[in-house]
């Protein structure tokens, strides 16, 4: 299970929340986002990667630049608590799959 893809984990970090607020107003490049923080550029890149992996941010190629913008749909899911509900079922169904594979091999 890749912990990074957990949106709730993603928004637990204050820097990542700040990134989301920043990008909410307009699409920005990684460089422009990084210039708003004192943290080192690779650290900001890591945060952007995590936010992209859990689909809170989307990347868009514009010429030679990659712009980041907010994935409103995913943000809404977080607000609506869908993700924990989905995760609960996902865990349950993973268990079902394991139980039945063992059952078959008996």
């Amino acid at each position, binding site marked *: 299970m890749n912990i990074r893809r957990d949106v709730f984990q993603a928004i637990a970090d204050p820097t990542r929340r700040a990134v989301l607020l920043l990008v909410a107003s307009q699409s920005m490049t990684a460089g422009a986002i990084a210039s708003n923080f004192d943290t080192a550029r690779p650290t900001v890149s890591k945060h952007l990667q995590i936010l992209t992996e859990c689909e809170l941010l989307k990347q868009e190629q514009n010429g030679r630049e990659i712009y980041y913008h907010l994935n409103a749909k995913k943000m809404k899911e977080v607000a*609506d608590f869908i993700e*924990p509900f989905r995760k609960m079922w996902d865990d349950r169904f993973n268990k079902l799959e394991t139980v039945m594979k063992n059952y078959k091999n008996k």
Partner: protein
Amino acid sequence: MEQKTKINAEEGKQELTITREFDLPVELLFKAYEELELVEQWMGTRVLKLENKKHGSYQFETSHNGQVVFQANGTIHEFVPNQKITRTFEIENAPIGVQLEFLEFVKTTDDTSKLSIQIIYKSERHRAEQLKLPFANGLNMAHDKLQEIINKLK
């Protein structure tokens, strides 16, 4: 990476759909719903009763440290092996109310299958309560874990 379990909960509606693809033949997937001992294993609850037939009923109960923490029950309306189950479901002492569930089991290949569960709630508000539940439980669990660690420090 594509998510295996998907939830579709459209705004302004009182229903939601859960879909999941399984790396299991449809017969095995259905069996996981059919046999009491198997349901207990993957649902993580005791199954007090499971009558798989039209007008049959079922009952779940989970205890933690000798205390009952979860009780749920429902009635089965349709039971067609390897195809579908139509039933009601109700978590006792929860603000979600009775829900109607349509479970459809579909064979995709000889070794894979798909399950879709359409759940209809009494109102949009009841659906919202359902979505909040695992989130609240998750917080409680995190809190319990914290308490456990603190107790060890004492």
